[in-house]
């Protein structure tokens, strides 16, 4: 027995006589029948990532100047990615859908899987968007079943931050980080000793996306959370990475903390594993010089993250095409340069990286250069078990809490992660896969 959602929800609402008539008209899909066509105006739902409201408004003003027939409006659709996706889901039940919305590394797939967002490939072709100019890793992050469901927008990666003063005091190089996690383990005692016994590295805990940061460590050890739809937590390599994390935490080399940025910025640890998004804040907040480095390899040892732009499936072709032209505009070479310099996110066009303005900016800001170099040299797309399986991030984060702060056996915890992940895949994913 299968219902379409709109008719189903309105069924119960039939007590309200006004609602029942409208409900019969729709029912064909996620879109709201009445607002399907739109009026040429483009609604962009954003959470202004990285404090970018002014930048977004400026880009929209420029767009509106050039495209008076299809003006765009900026809608504050939440304080974070979860809230945007909540609002989009509400709109899918029968409100006016946005034309473009921001969707995070963990939320885009569910929209794509349930055909709530539209594949962009045909829109790229139809609107002369040069998709080859998009940085390859960032573009391929949105690949599902041979099609792309998102355009990179506010994209970040992990970074290592090291307190230069402590590196110097420990007699370690101050121009690079450890190249492997084994090298980190060798450096750690010196870093701890040079900084009054404080941990060599602080990482956010399981409630604060440790699952994202640890993913790169698992890769560096040759492991992964999953190979496509097969969970691989129990593979020897992944377990070895977990074991390493556990031992380093027990030895006091790595601290797991709810407020990792702040602990690092007040000198509570010599190093920090965090997002590129923290760079701006730390530059203001830290009272000491620090360097940024790649995550220890071998490569790839660093996941990307952040948000992209998606276009709903339930709007008219005309709206989709307008939306695509708008998306192309706000991610244009010039705009991605302005946006990334203003927020700390990555420029998402290859042409932007060669642009004279960007080259000059990066020369002055070597810490921003690190992230871009790393994007090319050290990143890969995330594992399905974290970003595509519902509840993946929180589930893995909780498991990592159990081994770091709970001291449980890595093999046991990872075996249970395997099983839980497989159960969810079987129940919620497999029936929907093409």
């Amino acid at each position, binding site marked *: 027995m299968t219902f379409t959602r709109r008719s189903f929800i309105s069924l119960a609402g039939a007590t309200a006589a006004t*609602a029942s008539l409208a409900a019969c008209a729709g029912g064909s899909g996620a879109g709201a029948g009445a607002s399907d066509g739109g009026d040429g105006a483009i*609604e962009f739902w954003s959470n202004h990532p990285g404090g970018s409201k002014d930048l977004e408004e400026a880009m929209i003003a420029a767009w509106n100047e050039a495209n008076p027939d299809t003006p765009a409006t900026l809608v504050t659709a939440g304080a974070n990615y979860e809230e945007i996706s909540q609002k989009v889901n509400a709109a899918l039940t029968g409100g*006016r859908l946005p034309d473009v919305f921001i969707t995070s590394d963990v939320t885009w797939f569910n929209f794509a899987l349930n055909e709530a967002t539209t594949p962009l490939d045909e829109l790229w072709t139809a609107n002369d968007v040069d998709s080859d100019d998009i940085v390859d890793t960032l573009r391929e992050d949105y690949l599902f079943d041979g099609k792309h469901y998102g355009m990179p927008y506010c994209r970040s990666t992990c970074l290592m931050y090291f307190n230069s003063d402590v590196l110097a005091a420990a007699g370690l190089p101050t121009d690079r980080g450890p190249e492997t996690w084994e090298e980190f383990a060798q450096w750690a005692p010196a870093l701890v000793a040079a900084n009054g016994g404080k941990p060599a590295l602080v990482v956010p805990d399981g409630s604060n996306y440790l699952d994202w940061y640890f993913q790169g460590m698992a890769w560096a050890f040759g492991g992964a959370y999953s190979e496509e739809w097969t969970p691989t937590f129990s593979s020897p390599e992944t377990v070895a990475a977990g074991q390493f994390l556990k031992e380093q935490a027990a030895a006091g080399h790595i601290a797991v903390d709810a407020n990792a940025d702040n602990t690092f*910025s*007040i000198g509570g640890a010599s190093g920090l594993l965090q997002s590129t998004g923290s760079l701006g804040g730390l530059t203001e907040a830290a009272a000491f010089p620090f360097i940024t480095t790649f995550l220890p390899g071998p490569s790839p040892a660093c996941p990307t993250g952040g948000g992209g732009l998606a276009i709903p499936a339930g709007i008219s072709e005309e709206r989709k095409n307008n939306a695509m032209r708008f998306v192309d505009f706000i991610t244009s070479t010039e705009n991605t340069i302005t946006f990334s310099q203003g927020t700390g996110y990555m420029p998402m066009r290859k042409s932007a990286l060669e642009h004279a303005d960007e080259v000059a900016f990066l020369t002055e800001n070597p810490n921003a250069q690190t992230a871009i170099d790393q994007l090319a040299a050290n990143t890969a797309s995330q594992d399905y078990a974290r970003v595509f399986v519902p509840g993946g991030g929180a589930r893995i984060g909780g498991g990592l809490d159990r081994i770091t702060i709970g001291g449980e056996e890595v093999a046991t915890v990872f075996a249970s992660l395997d099983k839980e992940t497989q159960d969810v895949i079987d129940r919620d994913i497999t029936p929907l896969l093409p």
Partner: protein
Amino acid sequence: MSTALSPAAASPAAVPSAAPKALPPTPGTQAAGEPPMNARQSARRRAISGDGGSPVGRAFGYGAMVLTALVFLLPLYFILITSLKTHGDIYSDPISWIPDPFAPENFSTVMNNLNFGTYLRNSIIITAILTIVEVTLGVLSAYGFAFLRFPGRDLLFLLLIGSLMVPNQITIISNYSMVAQWGWRNTFAGIIVPLAGVAFGAFLMRNHFLSLPTEIMEAAEMDSAGFFRTLFKVVLPMSWPTVSAFVLITVVTEWNQYLWPFLIASDDSVMPLPIGLTQLQNSEGMTNWGPVMAGTIITTLPMLLVFILLQKQMIKGLTAGAVKG
């Protein structure tokens, strides 16, 4: 059982010897023929209601008050100083107790970078309308539940209380799809109407009405005073402290509504303050909490003002009663 449930009935013997024919003396009303209190009587009233107590008792009272103030003020103090700190100064070890440098510009950041005036206006519109509607509906339905006998009353009252058990996380999707179909997305009506039903206040007021001396209602009934006369001349004058509490809680609740207005509002024209202020938070990386705390303080101050005004009202209820008794 009867004595247990109704405070008014708890000690029937203590009810003053009210003549059943005339309205008994009630707080806030001056019944005809009631002798005014002499000075000694009112002094004693004050002593009792104020509870001066022994010097030891007073010292204990002040000690407890200082302790309370400390427990509450410390975290509040952090909100205040954070609003005056620069990004780099917010976290430090040990904690810095005085902003250095002093950063009042956090407040101008909030005022200048956001459509603050618009959000404030929207918040006032939404809160004012909701408060008026909810208090009216609450008092009226409480009156019905407390003083009138009608078929289905007990069932309806159970349903009223039962609605307090439904969290808004489970009502929003269904309500959204209905309200959106009415075309009420991004309108004040869409924000206000679904929030206008009142269960808490009706429950509160009904409980209070039941605690009023029964003789009053009977007397009013015998007087065959109309509904409005009974409500405004008899019932409400004895209820201001509770009504004030009802108004206060309602104002605060509606002022702080987040989830529902967040879903319905899509631009500045109807967006209330709590949603407008989320723009200050950084969804990835480090949020600079200075401006966020400044925004919080600016949002909170009007509510504290409402509290101070209304708590005077609550005290007035007392003093009026104490003087006229």
